């Protein structure tokens, strides 16, 4: 029986650490420039002990950095041994293989000192607006074409910022002030974390984090073991075919539940792409771990103890473990699909806890116009580059319909149409849910959406297409039907390619129809009241209700005219 209060103190300090990294993340979001960081939260922040174990990671942030940032810190410690670190040192990289998967993501690591002694490391990652190279899109054939590659190096030494490095960055990117602003924001948020940590150590009279770190890691590992122990042991294999770029991609996973660990191996997965959709192993690990955690232990915080129980491997030279110098810009295209593959395995182990497949990869509109891209020098049309996050439908869930126009697994937010129109010559004529796109099922898949966009100056504009599920739909489970395929086209009728840069000619409207999520369970068993509601709301047409759900004409009502 514990009569002393120490056990409670450890719990309280753990909660404090979670707050410390949340403050670190919020500082980063509030000061970021790139759309994906500030609007979409494409960042992460965490604190590490001196053995490189992640103790806490901010909830604010993206699954793409789960574990990948953690692995990154190990690379930094190896390159810059702890005994050589000085107060005021800050380290940086955007190495896709040692960071978080593509050149746009910079990771910054800062040592924290208390009384002259190194006590912890803070790391943060953020997506910067530009790194030079081709710019947006998956068209590069080698990482060299994708922009500036910064190996692990000092950003600041003993408090002095490496000005030559910044000079180099400025000369290589399209928005030098914003990019350098984002790099400073990364360093500053680590300082915020450090300050808060030191205040906590002062309050509790801690000289180091060793005891607290063991408590966090051990408790988490135990809880993860318990969660895994509740699953049946065994191995399950699942595969999913997706559109790819130069060839279809077969994603194959074998998931093994063992004694306190889950192993996922991607042997059998397709080989490399010649274009920028290859997914470095760090990013493969991130989204695979995320998928497992969502089903097995969603409530456990991300830290070394919880994550070390999930082990991910992929053979070299497959699209999930590409070597340098493969092009990797649009690695999320593949990475976002991995939770669906994991779910396919887990569905066999625990049948009623897993959703159907969804749109999964984002349908981000990367649009631009300007000299050399869509116009000749001297053109009067307004140049612009935007990245606007949008999503199709998510898969139906046990007991619940899929979420419409909602990202999963990514955690981004959209950009308001009015905000985009205020800074570009674009006009969005339509942004509406796409009827009949949700896969029929006892639980219906989420609906995709349709966007129609035009350049109101009558000038051409370009799209850097990076879209999936235009050939291979999100499949249903347990008798549920697939969601509708996505489609990219011109209003005049011509279908566009799902990948790569293309120009929308003068006066044309771009039509983007986003895919729906898969259904779960036999559509014939769907509650007729739910079908009636969907028809009344125009989410399912009367015709589809008859065809897919056998919903009789006698009971169907006509939805109001738009």
């Amino acid at each position, binding site marked *: 029986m514990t009569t002393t209060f120490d056990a409670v103190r450890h719990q309280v300090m753990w909660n404090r650490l979670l707050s410390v990294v949340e403050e670190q993340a919020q500082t980063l979001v509030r000061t970021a420039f790139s759309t994906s960081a500030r609007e979409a939260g494409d960042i992460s922040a965490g604190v590490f002990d001196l053995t490189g174990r992640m103790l806490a990671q901010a909830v604010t942030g993206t699954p793409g950095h789960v574990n990948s940032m953690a692995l990154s810190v190990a690379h930094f410690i190896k390159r810059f041994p702890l005994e050589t670190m000085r107060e005021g040192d800050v380290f940086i990289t955007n190495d896709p293989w040692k960071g978080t998967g593509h050149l746009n993501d910079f990771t910054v690591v800062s040592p924290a000192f208390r009384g002259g002694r190194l006590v912890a490391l803070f790391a943060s990652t953020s997506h910067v607006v530009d790194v030079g190279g081709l710019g947006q899109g998956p068209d590069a054939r080698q990482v060299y074409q994708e922009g500036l590659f910064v190996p692990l190096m000092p950003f600041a030494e003993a408090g002095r910022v490496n000005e030559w490095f910044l000079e180099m960055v400025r000369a290589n990117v399209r928005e030098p002030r914003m990019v350098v602003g984002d790099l400073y924001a990364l360093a500053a948020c680590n300082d915020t974390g450090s300050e808060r940590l030191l205040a906590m150590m002062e309050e509790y009279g801690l000289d180091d984090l060793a005891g607290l770190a063991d408590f966090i890691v051990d408790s988490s590992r135990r809880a993860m073991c318990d969660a895994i122990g509740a699953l049946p042991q065994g191995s399950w294999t699942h595969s999913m075919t997706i559109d790819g770029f130069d060839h279809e991609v077969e994603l194959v996973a074998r998931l093994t539940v063992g004694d306190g660990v889950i192993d996922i191996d991607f042997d059998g997965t397709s080989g490399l792409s010649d274009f920028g959709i290859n997914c470095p192993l760090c990013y493969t690990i991130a989204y695979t771990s995320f998928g497992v955690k969502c089903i097995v232990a969603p*409530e456990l915080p991300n830290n070394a103890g919880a994550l070390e129980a999930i082990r991910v491997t992929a053979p070299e030279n497959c699209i999930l473990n590409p070597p340098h110098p493969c092009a990797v810009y649009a690695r999320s295209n593949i990475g976002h699909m991995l939770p669906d593959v994991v779910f396919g395995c887990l569905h066999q182990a625990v049948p009623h806890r897993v959703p159907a497949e969804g749109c999964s990869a984002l349908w981000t509109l990367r649009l631009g116009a300007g000299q050399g891209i869509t116009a000749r020098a001297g053109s009067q049309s307004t140049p612009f580059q935007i990245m606007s996050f949008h999503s199709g439908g998510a898969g139906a869930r046990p007991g619940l319909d899929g979420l419409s126009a909602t990202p999963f697994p990514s955690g981004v937010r959209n950009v308001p149409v009015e905000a985009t129109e205020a800074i570009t010559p674009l006009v969005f004529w339509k942004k509406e849910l796409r009827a009949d796109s949700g896969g029929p099922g006892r639980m219906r898949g989420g609906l995709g959406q349709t966007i129609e966009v035009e350049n109101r100056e009558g000038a051409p504009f370009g799209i850097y297409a990076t879209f999936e599920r235009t050939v291979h739909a999100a499949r249903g489970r347990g008798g549920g039907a697939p969601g509708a395929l996505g489609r990219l086209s011109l209003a005049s009728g011509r279908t566009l390619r799902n990948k790569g840069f293309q120009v929308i000619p003068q006066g044309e409207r771009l039509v983007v129809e986003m895919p729906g999520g898969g259904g779960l369970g036999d559509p014939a068993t769907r509650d007729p009241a739910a079908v009636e509601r969907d028809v009344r709301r*125009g989410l399912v047409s009367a015709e589809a209700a008859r065809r897919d759900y056998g919903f009789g004409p006698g009971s169907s009502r006509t939805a109001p005219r738009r």
Partner: protein
Amino acid sequence: MMYQDIENKQEKSITGAPIRIGVDVGGTFTDVVIEHTGGRHSAKVPTTADAPETGVIEGIGAALERADVVPEAVSLVIHGTTLATNALIERKGAKTALLTTEGFRDSIEMAYEHRFEQYDLYMERPEPLVPRERRLGVPERLAADGSLLMPLDEAAITAHAAFFRQEGVEAVAVGFLHSYVDASHERRAGAILKRELPEATICLSSEVSPEIREYDRLSTTVANAYVRPLIAGYVGRLEAALRECGLACPLLLTMSSGAVTTVETAQRFPIRLVESGPAGGAVLARNVAAAHGLDKALSFDMGGTTAKICLIDDYRPQLSRTFEVARQYRFLKGSGLPLRIPAIEMVEIGAGGGSMARVDALQRIAVGPDSAGANPGPACYGRGGGAATVTDADLILGRIDPVRFAGGTMVLDGEAARDVIRRDVGAPLGMTDEVAAAGVSEIVDEAMANAARVHAIESGKPLAGRALIAFGGAAPLHAARLAGKLGIDRVVVPPGAGVGSAIGFLSAPIAYEVVQSRFVALDNFAPVLVDTLFDEMRAEAEAVVRLGAPKSQLEETRTGYMRYRGQGHEIAVELPECADAEEYRRRFDDAYRRLYGRTIPALEVEGMSWSLALGAVDQLPARLPATPPADAGLPSARRMLYDTEVGGSVEAAVHARADLAPGMRLVGPVVVVEDETATVVPAGFDLTVAASGALVLTWKTPD
């Protein structure tokens, strides 16, 4: 019916009005406070949900009787209510429709296309207030610069109106794209709807919330339409009922911003009344801060279900342009409906006396956000509540006197508290009852401290050097420990905390704020355009304020919502009276540096929205006089009090608050008990009683 007297002999009415009444209509109780030359009297009666004016009249009658004042002598009634909030939470508003630009009827359903909870596969977004079948598109379109891309199809509106009529629609929200630049299409649509649907309420987004970002603007407009029939009807009935009782004085209503406005404005924009109850609490805290000369304060309001924390600088509660109502999901950001209204910025978390404690999968103590509420309430209430709550833990720790609770109307069951804390926390973790209870208390205090820290960093304001102003039933029990965690060394517990919001209303300023979006780049700046915009806003605000303050001197504050080009979040920048690019830039840089510690040279600055706040010159209470030291009497009792800072029990003196007089000084550990709560003064804190009757706890810095 419960009556009470607030010990308030020294403090005179702080405004010129001789007799004023504050009314706070909450979900469960209606509080009435009357302030007159003889002091303050109050009444607490159950809220009569079906016709809230009945409860108000009953409460006012009781308070008048108690104060021995006739209705005719009352000069002003100020009213705040959670009715609008509750209508949104409980979905009890009008049958509402939305008319929007064709192609955009799903904007309020798609929201931010975001999952606010990443790991929860079962997350659901709130249902829109208007279902899809009543959201119709109209062919029309303006560009972002206001130029016409497609004319308004008036025939389509007439056709839609026929459908609305057939469906029995009671309220219609109209929101077209870019209407914040040019409202002509919305106005025309509104006129047609008024003609076709003379009985219905019509709300235009260009009037309710003329701000860029379509989802937020439409969400606000729809919510306004949704609650308007209900609130406008209630306010009208209330006004009539007051007159009938002889209260012919003006009626003013408290808004989310903490300021008050007229019946006319409240009826037109009832969405601005959301959360006016908690706003009243923040106004009370501001007054306490002013009376005690605390220019940096943190208000801490902890009740049965939630705790609310608000930063108060220079006696002004922090204001925000956004508010999220009806968060359905553990109070998580993003799980409610966004409203673009001027509101006092507060962080609210699910931590209150009724918050339930348990052990999570990580063998950690977890508390809240689910709450046992007031009924059945914590296990120690003995009303059949089976959950281990924060109040049960507080009882075990010796903070609450079991026989004095709620003025002695209820005897708390200490054994029941021990049983549930042992069962839900102590036994699973192998802890004694005391350690388990202390753990529950520490975890809830840490949760509140963390919420305050993250809120402070989001606001770019440090917590160090602030004073904590604690009110609400559970706050004085936890305030000292919370202060310790935040590095705060002064805590003030004002008297009358149980009706704090109603007291706050009495001194709420008469003010109104309008906002307008207009994209302006500072490197391409037309001062005339901005000045004209502000002039229009001034006229609009003045029209409202003059109704409530016809002769007062007015004070104006101009604010720009500005950012570096390329950023997504604007910051609020207070602006001078004349538009000037250089001065705007300088002020932006200052504000940015204050928030984030640095500026980014050579990057262009742009403004997205502009607001103008206009109000009668705000009268703050005068500084309290110093009190000569007085001897505190002997404690009424002694009891064991668990000190979570040191992790053990100590003997504490118990004093009744009614026995304490200004100037008295006590040294912790002490517990000061009163009917509704108790103030815990741990070892290391000194307690002095201020002239107002407030308890002031000061941390003694160890030498």
